[in-house]
């Protein structure tokens, strides 16, 4: 590698990359017409992972702040929209807004608390875990939302998809998530081109230098957390309405937080398409492993596989799969 700018953030789009993106979007758009219900449900899982990965990537990959407690925001978004629907018959779209606002507020508070007292790096990460766990325990004892026995959304057998109340087929959820994922991609790209994106990257690279250039580091870090949390909560609402049930011990689980971060790490931290690619690779291979372990009757093969792939990629492609694939596909920008 010559050290020629490979455009760490993936700004600028070459004609080739634009065509590649168009093909990808087209394939994703028509997929439900050609694939089985099982494959479609796997693709829904892919898109969930891609979307959450993008939301987390904004905070970690671009602004450089490590959160290991993003399950907190998945849960807040899920519970806010589900409770408002179950208790007050409010459409989830309204609940999403409430969930997003709540998550942004909670995220800002955690960030403000940490950064005000200079809790950064791994200590910040520990704090995010603590808040997620604390909230999980809180919801375990929160009777009004079902506590440990869970919250259930009424399943209606409708002839048509009800988009307003998010009751309907897998395909409906697939398209919702596809829009979310592409929206997150567009938003991330837009922000990277703006001052805020430059400032986040500057903070990620060197906080002292960033501050010396006039950047209010505290404010921009809190903003990154708020946005990432709100985006995550939006996805959380779809988790609730897709699964029709919510348990604090699943939705707020540390495992959930870890799953969110694997796709962007595998795909390429701080890259725009990395989280999406990582989600595809991990979910499809994970599914394959699950069925293989069914065939061979080996429990936990999937987990072994996850560990092995993580190790292999971290060892062989520490920058992630996307920078490598991007170069292979000839999508690297030649500037001007």
């Amino acid at each position: 590698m010559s050290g020629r700018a490979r455009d760490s953030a993936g700004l600028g789009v070459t004609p080739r990359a634009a065509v590649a993106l168009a093909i990808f979007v087209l394939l994703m758009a028509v997929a439900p017409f050609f694939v089985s219900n099982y494959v479609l449900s796997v693709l829904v899982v892919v898109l969930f992972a891609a979307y959450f990965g993008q939301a987390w990537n904004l905070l970690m990959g671009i602004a450089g702040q490590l959160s290991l407690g993003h399950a907190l925001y998945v849960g807040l978004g899920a519970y806010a929209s589900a409770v408002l629907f179950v208790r007050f018959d409010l459409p989830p779209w309204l609940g999403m807004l409430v969930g997003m606002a709540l998550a942004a507020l909670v995220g800002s508070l955690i960030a403000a608390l940490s950064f005000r007292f200079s809790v950064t790096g791994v200590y910040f990460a520990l704090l995010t875990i603590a808040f997620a766990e604390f909230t999980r325990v809180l919801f375990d004892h929160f009777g009004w939302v079902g506590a440990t026995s869970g919250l259930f959304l009424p399943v209606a057998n409708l002839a048509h998809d009800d988009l307003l109340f998010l009751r309907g087929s897998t395909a409906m959820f697939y398209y919702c998530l596809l829009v979310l994922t592409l929206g997150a991609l567009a938003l991330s790209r837009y922000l990277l081109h703006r001052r805020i994106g430059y400032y986040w990257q500057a903070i990620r690279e060197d906080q002292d230098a960033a501050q010396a250039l006039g950047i209010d580091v505290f404010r921009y870090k809190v903003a990154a957390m708020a946005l990432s949390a709100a985006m995550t909560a939006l996805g959380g609402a779809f988790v609730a309405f897709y699964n029709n049930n919510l348990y604090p011990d699943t939705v707020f689980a540390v495992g959930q937080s870890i799953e969110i971060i694997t796709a962007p790490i595998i795909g390429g931290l701080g890259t725009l398409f990395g989280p999406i690619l990582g989600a595809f690779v991990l979910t499809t291979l994970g599914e394959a492993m699950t069925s293989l372990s069914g065939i061979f009757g080996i429990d936990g093969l999937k987990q072994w596989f996850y560990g092995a792939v993580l190790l292999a990629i971290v060892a062989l492609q520490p920058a992630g799969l996307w920078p490598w694939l991007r170069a292979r596909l000839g999508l690297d920008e030649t500037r001007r």
Partner: protein
Amino acid sequence: MSATPILEVRGISKRFRGLQAVDQVSFAVPQGGIVALIGPNGAGKTTTFNLIAGVFAPDTGQVLIDGVDITGLRADRVCHAGIGRTFQLVKPFGALTALENVVVGALKGTTEMTAARRLAWEILDRLGLADKADLVARSLTLPERKRLEVARALATRPKVLLLDEVMAGLRPTEIDAMVAVFAELSRDTGLAILLTEHVMRAVMMLSHHIVVLHHGQKICEGTPEMVSRDPQVLACYLGKTPPAGQA
């Protein structure tokens, strides 16, 4: 030194535990002036810089820029008040390109990307980095990174530029080129420069005025000629030998 000072430091002190790092230091930098802060290692030069740049607040004393008190303000506020600084140990944004590094500085006080990029190009050009614009900063050589550090600070359009040992590690021809850039900047734009430097050749060529620190105290100040003849300076800073081209 008759012009109104753009930067004025009034009796600042800073104590770290038992060590009085900076002790009642006062000096001023006029508009378009180039002032050097020199002294042996541990004299308190970098601490003085950090006190001005808002890395930490002085225990006593005041820092004024254009007559406005900026004492104890946070580093980003100090930057907005009109001070641009470089770091002795360079701190490039490694994963960003040279151009993007400078754009970050140029975005101070504006969200207009096109204007910021244009300014960044101008500055890269002035510092001879235009052909490196698209290289990621971590792939630049040390002299290039030193210049990038200066470029980034300049992009914030400061009234005063603080240069912390930007000549260290450069070859004589590179030093001459840097000196030319700073002399030109201060002449053309009225930029005031405060620098610390061990490279005496650069200090003597560049500065209009020199402040000498020793054990945190100002022991002498004046024109380069005056300072280089001062017996106290010779004793503490240059040793007993007369000053050569380089210390």
